[in-house]
């Protein structure tokens, strides 16, 4: 049997009605192992204007490099208080935020390890289908050997790597168009 996947449609301007109940910006309760990271960023359009009606979702492994999902059978610890999912709805400044832990490395193509990363899914009015991208961590040596970053033209890789900013937070922005347009994936 072969069916065709249903057509994607925009999330529209009223996404808050359906999605706000499960806003999860603090992803790692006390007691979850790993290096704490705070990620702050903005979504901006072609004119540099804030996108105030986007949903940004994170999916990540725990600090041991294991996903809380039955298909991840790696011999690494699971933590019952860490699901690995976050959702932030942008505010009037286009800003979103996540407080989480830095994930460990997980297997990539051909068994090579990937560098620590967060997968990022973005929905908004004006997108008929969602965007898929990733956040990597600054100054992580593993970035140099990450098999997915290696697929990205060198001059655009920086758009996938968060920057350390004042107060110990990490900054990562989703730039939809223009200079420094974020790399989005064909998934």
């Amino acid at each position, binding site marked *: 049997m072969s069916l065709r*996947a*249903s057509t994607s449609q925009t999330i529209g301007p009223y996404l808050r009605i359906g999605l706000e109940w499960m806003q999860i910006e603090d992803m790692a309760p006390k007691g979850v192992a790993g290096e704490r990271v705070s990620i702050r960023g903005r979504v901006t359009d072609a004119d540099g204007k804030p996108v105030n009606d986007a949903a940004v979702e994170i999916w990540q492994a725990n600090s041991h490099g294991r996903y809380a999902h039955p298909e991840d059978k790696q011999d690494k610890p699971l933590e019952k208080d860490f699901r690995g999912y976050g959702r932030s709805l942008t505010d009037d400044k286009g800003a979103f935020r996540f407080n989480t832990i830095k994930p460990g490395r997980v297997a*990539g193509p051909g068994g090579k390890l990937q560098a620590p990363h967060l997968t990022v899914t973005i929905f908004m009015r004006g997108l008929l289908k969602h965007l898929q991208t990733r956040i990597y961590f600054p100054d992580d040596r593993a970035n140099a050997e990450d098999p997915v970053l290696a697929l990205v033209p060198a001059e655009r890789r920086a758009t996938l790597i968060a920057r350390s900013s004042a107060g110990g937070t990490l900054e990562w922005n989703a730039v939809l168009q223009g200079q420094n347009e974020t790399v989005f994936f064909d998934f």
Partner: protein
Amino acid sequence: MDPAPYRRPYWNTQPDYLFPKYASTVRRAPTQPLVVLPHTLSEVTAPVFGYDAVKPGDSDLTKQHKDEPQGERIVVSGRVLDENGKPVPNILIEIWQANAAGRYNHRVDQHDAPLDPNFTGAGRFLTDHHGRYRFMSIRPGEYPWRNHYNAWRPAHIHFSLFGQGLMQRLVTQMYFPGDPLLEYDPMFMCVADEKARNRLISLFDWENTIPEWALAYRFDIVLRGREETPMENRR
């Protein structure tokens, strides 16, 4: 061994990012080439939600307030399958919609139609072991929007589905059969394949109507399927 990847979408069944007839895409669609993403463990896994995520009342949008909402009661049900025809069980579905007058309970919606104090317009539920879901609501109204002169959205319900893997995540809209606005709607018309578009239209579902209470609509949803693994090809 690398996980079996999800099949890439059939070419004319999924929209492009840039679709100028839907004006908001012009300043928001990526302009640089997309980078083809391999499906690693990060892409074939996804958040898992349990029955504690939803309350029984979350699937009846007509019973979330003191009194009944205005409008025509409907039952919507269907199955979630993957492209291989396998049911997708135990996934979270979120829905939201306008009220019977075509007005959303949202500060940005300034359409001059009445709000309904007895209708929020949001629900959520999990698919069962067979991939089935069901909810009660009221039929949403059509409403004008500012995409072009005299633009009206056909009646629709928004659906957000978490699949079993990140590559199955889907946000879509369900439409109603016989809606004369469909062919004028750039969102509905966003893909070239007429059959794909028509799969977004629910079917009138006589069997599930509730006599003297509510009409029923059926809306089946298909999420992406995995490529067969080499092992399976060999049989």
